């Protein structure tokens, strides 16, 4: 472990803050606003102190929101009519 990593690790421990790895594990609930208030607070404090985690959370948030931009394919009315005929035929079978 490098001196820098040791220093950062010790700093987070001294401030009673989660590690970067723990912040990643909280990311889903952090985005959903589902963390309890004390965890939310310490994650927030970690993010203020850690640029890497700030950037990680920003990109993670964006990734989650990209799903909304997916195209929404729809069916043509002719196929819906065929489906209805198919169901009527199948449904009438003994």
């Amino acid at each position, binding site marked *: *472990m*490098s001196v820098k*990593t*040791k220093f*950062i*690790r010790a700093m*987070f421990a001294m401030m009673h803050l989660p*590690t*970067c*790895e*723990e912040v*990643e594990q909280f*990311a*889903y*609930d952090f985005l959903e606003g589902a963390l309890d208030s004390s965890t939310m607070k310490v994650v927030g404090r970690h993010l203020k102190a*850690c640029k*890497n*985690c*700030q*950037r*990680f959370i*920003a*990109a*993670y*948030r*964006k*990734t*989650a*929101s*990209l*799903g*909304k*931009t*997916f*195209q*929404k*394919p*729809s*069916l043509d009315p002719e*196929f*819906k009519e065929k*489906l*209805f005929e*198919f*169901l*009527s035929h*199948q*449904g*009438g079978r003994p």
Partner: protein
Amino acid sequence: MKEETTLLEGLKKGMESAYRGLVEGYSDRLFRIISRFVRNPEEAKEVLQTVFLKVIENIQKFEGNSSLYTWLYRIAVNEALMRIRSQKPRREISWEEVLPHYEDGIRTFEVPDWSKLPDQQLADRELQLFVQESVAELSEDLKAAYLLKDVEQLSEDEVCTILDLTKPAMKNRVHRARLFLRKRIEERYVR
């Protein structure tokens, strides 16, 4: 809810008006989720037809433990997964490459922030296609969770019911799918 009950009763009695209601009310939404897995539109239509066939074959057994809509989604996701299973095997993802690296819990590499790319670029058709291609690389369990939660925007409870998962398991799958996609986009647009 009342409409759903009426539709359900009609389907159980084999009424044509109920079949019409099923097609009008649910075919677009089901086609959409099937198309997320089965990307060829003609194949997706075949899967949808199979889904509706299963619905009328099994409607008498449906006891209403979940909403009709959730039950339909469950059948659609299962059928879509069965269809893609029969296709060529996907390439295995190496999680070592995708998951963030830590040294004693601390990030040791600088994280690039592609979320600051101009919105126009992020909404770009090329990026959308790239993300959709990347989703296709996910394993079945991660793909299903991601598509239902982040693409279809269903609630956590709905996703858990459809995929028969506990909430922690569902969250874990969505999280891992996001980590994978985040890394893929980073590799493509930042480095």
